[in-house]
């Protein structure tokens, strides 16, 4: 019997529970091993996503600083530009 267990939702947990009494020891061991691998993957993905988010936040902060710098420059240039236009 090939058992795929998904503990992430109620339906999956109910299905897993219904199998317990009929599982062989080997099938149970494999199911646990797969669950551990799955949990490891979720953790790894979260860490990767957090790293990407941190990197993106850093980039956004950098962009914001650049925008502020440009705005300041514009504030200095615009009055003179308007005078010249007149």
């Amino acid at each position, binding site marked *: 019997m*090939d058992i795929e267990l998904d503990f992430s939702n109620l339906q999956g947990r109910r299905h897993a529970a219904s199998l317990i009494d009929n599982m062989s020891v080997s099938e149970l061991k*494999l199911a646990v*091993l*797969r669950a*551990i691998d799955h949990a490891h993957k979720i953790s790894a993905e979260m860490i990767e996503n957090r*790293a990407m988010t941190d990197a993106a936040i850093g980039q956004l902060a950098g962009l914001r600083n650049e925008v502020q710098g440009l705005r300041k420059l514009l504030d200095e240039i615009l009055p003179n530009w308007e005078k010249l236009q007149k």
Partner: protein
Amino acid sequence: MTSPDDAGPDLSRRVNFSIVTPVFNPDRKAFEACIKSVRNQEYPHWEWCLVDDRSTSWWVWPRLRFLSLIDRRIKVRRRSENGGISAASNDALGLATGEYVALLDNDDELTEDALAVVNHHIVHNPDVDYLYSDEDKILEDGTYGGRFTKPDWSPERLLCQNYCSHLSVIRRSIVSELGGFRAGYDGAQDHDLLLRVMDFDRSVVHIPEVLYHWRVAAGSTAADVSEKPEAVNAGRRAVEDAVIRRGITGEVLDAGAWYHRVKRRPTSTPRVSIIIPTCGTEGVIWGARNAFVENLVASISACSTYPDYEIVIVYDRGTNPLLLRRMQDSGLNLRLVEYTKPFNFSEKCNIGAVESTGEVLIFLNDDMEVISPDWIETLAAMVEDPTVGAVGPLLLFDNYLVQSAGHHAIGPGHFARGMSPKSPAAGGWPLVLNREVSGLTGACLAIRREVYFQVGGFSEQLPLNYNDVDLGYKIQADGLRLLWTPDVALFHFESKSREIEVSDEEKDFVRRLWGRFISGYSREPFVP
């Protein structure tokens, strides 16, 4: 670990460094270059502790005295008699008051930014005990070359080779606690000191920049360590002492290329399960056609000296039943487990693991042949270390060239594929050293049962390729090391010209999870 950002080194904290230099009859021009490299440091918070080991050249001591008069940061002393490099270095340590000591030889040079860069890394790693950088050589024509790009912290490799060498910066309190350099280890005094420092759990940072130029001169160890056989002997004793101090069971071997290697012996003989997924493929082995798995099992039986192992063969439905019968009747402690689903290497291995009974698991591809009789005990001994996750051996093609000597992260791929196992490879002689690696091939991999289950085994979402890459990253994510050893060798009859076709899906799968191990690196962390 962080690198200096584009704005330059971080100077929010200013560490005081004590540069320690024993002096004995240096080449005058080289010594002046050394002096210039220290006094031109961008970072000013240093003292330089120089001890003249009773040089016979008349100019040395007057030169040191003059330096101490013109620069208050320079402290000098002259020994009453020649005592050797360790004694002179200890006297220099006696003058030191800085928080960290930096070791500098009297004819070498620091880069201008060396101390600034080291300070930056200390600022970002305030608990660091030891830092080491990359180095290059000052060639005989005065140019710089021969960069040694070092691996990240590799304690197993340090046991074989003082790969850290220059520039080494150590927290002074640790050096003081250990009593400094030991007499009788001249020529390998730095290696001996580092090994004693690393007897305990320390915080270590590798700075992947050249901060030190090591002078190549005739008769120097920078040119050829064999020029100083006493240095090689001292190195051996330093490793032997470390083995005894750490309670390692094993022997120190001559690794060739003037390095030494610790060949461990297991402290117990746990059952080892050798798990072989197979579909009974046949091929030409040593000129004769045979089933790979049968040849492998015969070589295990004929060669192996380990007293307690079982073989678990996970075979595909459709495997030649006569082949299975022959193996079943071989008299070996062998189990056959049928696999009835479409090919999935990972799942077959997991089934083999679940059906096995050993405390140590060795996964083997069926197209292998054992070379080293003590292969099982050597691998089992190395995975005994609780900080080790998995160990892999040297795999050779049938032409005795390297098939795999560990994985490198960027790629990833087999390191040294097609090279001679005696090759200096990238120059650091990685093929003769036990060392940390970024990954191990699933063709032969030893792992403690508890670790294999802790990381969820091979991922069945990777049925063909990169399942070993993924396993390696899971192990490292759990804080365990991957080791490779040349003390165990097997043939791997994989076609030498076969290109492994990894699908984009497999690559994306691994990158999505382990980007910080792969694309997060601009360099290979365990580059040989």
